């Protein structure tokens, strides 16, 4: 990893007929909507989902990064993120995010190494560390 700041550019366009769209150069667009109200569409992503998704995906990437550094391989990994939006004073905030992961590994001997990779993955999750929200982790490791 270099020391240079990294820039992330996105464009969001609202078309009164077609609704909102997140555009990322060279990547798929994401159609977005409000969670409720006249122009909301339940089949589209909301900014709240994108926020919770950003930390959940970042945790996975960060965990993978540490497994590579530790030279350990896993069989499967999945995690579920749940964010809670609450009123704080006059406005709303996502106050907490719970991330539950389920990891399948080859042998019991590697368990403690994977526990360490999950711990470091959470500790160095860039996106999680950029949020005010409290982030709680619950990890399950299965041998199979």
């Amino acid at each position: 990893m270099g020391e240079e700041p990294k820039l992330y550019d996105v464009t969001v366009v609202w078309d009164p007929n077609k609704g909102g769209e997140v555009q990322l150069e060279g990547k798929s667009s994401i159609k977005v909507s409000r969670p409720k109200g006249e122009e909301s569409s339940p089949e589209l992503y909301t900014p709240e989902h994108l926020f919770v998704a950003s930390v959940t995906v970042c945790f996975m990437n960060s965990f993978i990064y540490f497994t590579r550094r530790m030279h350990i391989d896993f069989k499967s990994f999945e995690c579920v993120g749940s964010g809670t939006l609450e009123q704080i004073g006059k406005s709303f905030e996502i106050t907490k995010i719970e991330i539950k992961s389920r990891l399948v590994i080859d042998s019991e001997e590697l368990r403690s190494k994977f526990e360490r990779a999950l711990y470091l993955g959470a500790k160095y999750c860039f996106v999680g560390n950029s949020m005010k929200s409290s982030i709680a982790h619950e990890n399950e490791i299965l041998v199979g």
Partner: protein
Amino acid sequence: MSEESHEYHVRVDWTHNKEGNLIVDGKPEMKISTPPEFGGPDGIISPEDLFVAAATACLMTTFVTFKEKMRFDFKSFTCKGKGILERVEKGFQFTRIHLTTTVTVESEDLVPKAERAMELAGRYCLVSNSMKCPTEHENHVLVG
């Protein structure tokens, strides 16, 4: 706005290497990965993209909420978001988000309303309010 709280659930399934799928009930599945600058492939949405997209899309949806409260219409809305990820003491963190917004309205008399709605959207954007880093706004309201 009411006192109620809301929950947002997302799931991430690892597929291979540094890639996985983002799954949210009832919404399109999205391929996600580590970004190229951290050893991931090109052209796939990263958590860093999602983080900046969440703030940018939230400004849009909050603006739409205020324009409804203020009962006026706009012709177009484009917001360009830039997130800056920098190395801090504990790994990387987003240190700043810059949002440049252009709103087009039908007539000159709607300009102050649109400006006010943009200002309120910036203040009440719940995603930005859930982030540690400051969000800078640059708003342009055009008649066209």
